[in-house]
């Protein structure tokens, strides 16, 4: 028997012994695991098996071209949709991106026109106008639902299921009309290839709708307000006022069927009111972060930017950067139950990214969100101190 054969024999015997040991120890390990699950990791008991938060890998954040170049990306996407060719790298210049915050509507119109297409800046647009325009519209939206400023540009195409959004270089996605309306300022840039004028179509549609509205309003009015009568005094005034309110309710139902999205009203309201409802989360401390880092039934969210997260984070923390849009976060956390306890932190006590992400999470319907009043820096410092002691 050669040395090589001896070595192979030894390895195979070791593997055999390991298999036998595993078979013998298997039931013991399984029993111990079940016992641990039943009494809890801390051994305090309770007999309740905690729901385990599914583990998921890092997302590719930032593909929505957040930052000052979002307008350039949106303009080039719209130009390409119109059948011409444009690439964002050809338009990265002060002429097109005048401020750190990004491009103005006029600068984006210049991008479109320099790429050979026609741009029309329109304001006070409705979703009805988007349907009428029949061209790609660069829409001015809020980057995240929790923000108050309209600081982002996307291309919005209305569809039967809602609105299709083309945001930077990421794949297009669909959102409900109400959700889109909740983030849209009503400013849009219509992009067409030739001398086609979407404004004429929009005004024609608006006029037809206005006539229909007046006819409908007059019908409601005669039915509710004028039909109610009493001889004199307060009852007459009271009844007529009630009639006016009833007529307006009926008209509102009809009008919102055209301009709103009544079937997804709750989602629209959640997105529209998010900046004012940013306190739906609780404030927590570093103890909450430590608890979330230790427990499998909680989700620990690092709200810092992706590059900071990659440099180092707390164990078990997943990254939901402050720049992520509401829809990106929704897709990323799809598998997580809405009642899962979530603890959000960012760099330090002076950082407010965690508050923004916390507000986004509550907008998405997560009911148990805690935002830590300190952050990664404080936690690292306390750990160093503990090691030093």
């Amino acid at each position, binding site marked *: 028997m050669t040395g090589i054969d001896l070595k192979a024999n030894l390895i195979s015997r070791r593997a055999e012994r390991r298999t036998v040991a595993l078979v013998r120890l298997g039931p013991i390990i399984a029993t111990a695991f079940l016992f641990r699950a039943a009494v809890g990791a801390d051994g305090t008991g309770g007999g309740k098996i905690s729901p385990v938060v599914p583990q998921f890998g890092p997302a590719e954040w930032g593909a929505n071209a957040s930052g000052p170049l979002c307008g350039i990306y949106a303009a080039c996407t719209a130009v390409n949709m119109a059948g011409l060719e444009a690439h964002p790298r050809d338009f990265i210049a002060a002429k097109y991106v005048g401020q750190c915050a990004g491009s103005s509507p006029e600068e984006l119109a210049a991008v479109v026109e320099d790429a050979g297409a026609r741009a029309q800046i329109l*304001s*006070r*647009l*409705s979703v*009805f*106008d988007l349907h009428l325009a029949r061209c790609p519209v660069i829409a001015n939206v809020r980057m995240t639902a929790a923000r*108050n400023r309209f600081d982002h540009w996307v291309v919005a195409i209305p569809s039967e299921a809602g609105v299709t959004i083309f945001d930077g270089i990421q794949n297009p996605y669909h959102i409900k009309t*109400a959700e889109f*309306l*909740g983030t*849209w*300022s*009503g*400013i849009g840039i219509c992009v067409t290839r030739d001398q086609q004028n979407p404004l004429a179509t929009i005004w024609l549609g608006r006029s037809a709708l206005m006539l229909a*509205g*007046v006819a409908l*309003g*007059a019908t*409601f*009015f005669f039915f509710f*307000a*004028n039909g109610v009568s009493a001889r*004199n005094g307060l009852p007459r*005034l009271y009844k*007529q*006022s009630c*009639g*006016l*309110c009833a*007529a*307006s*309710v009926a*008209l*509102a139902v009809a*009008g*919102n069927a055209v*301009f*709103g999205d009544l079937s997804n*009203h*709750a989602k*629209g*309201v*959640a*997105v*529209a*009111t998010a*900046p*004012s*409802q940013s306190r739906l989360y609780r404030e927590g401390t570093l103890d909450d972060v430590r608890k979330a880092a230790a427990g499998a039934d909680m989700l620990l969210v690092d709200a810092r930017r992706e590059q900071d997260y990659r440099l180092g984070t707390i164990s078990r923390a997943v990254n939901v950067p402050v720049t992520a849009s509401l829809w990106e976060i929704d897709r990323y956390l799809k598998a997580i139950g809405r009642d899962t306890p979530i603890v959000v932190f960012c760099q330090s006590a002076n950082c407010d990214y965690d508050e923004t992400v916390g507000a986004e999470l509550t907008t998405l319907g997560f009911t148990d969100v805690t935002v830590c009043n300190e952050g990664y820096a404080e936690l690292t410092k306390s750990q160093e101190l503990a090691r030093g002691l």
Partner: protein
Amino acid sequence: MVVAVVLLFSGVIHAAQPYYFVHTIASYRLLPPGASGLLGLWLPYLQIVLAMCIGLGMVREAAFGVAVVLFATFAAVQIAVLARGMEIDCGCFGFIVRVVSPASVMLPIAMMSASVLGLVEARRSRRQSSA
């Protein structure tokens, strides 16, 4: 007539972008989200109906009465915002960004005064016609 034009202009603008109006109402931080949502979808149409009634001269007394209550409420909420030291968009005409200020409070106060005059005049003309 000025009251009718202001109500119609404001109503049509807000009706076209209902969730922007909901966003504006919520920014005043006076109502819960659900109430802001309902109010945002209904209030523009009340303004349109009032404008139609005043403009076309139908049930003017009731229309002016409701308009007085409406403008008084608008003025009161803006004064409440000023008292709390908040800096928010007025939202008076949809997407025209105008921060709530003493000047912006003057618009609903002026409209309320005009509506009171309209109400008095409508009541006087009704009494004359019934006499």
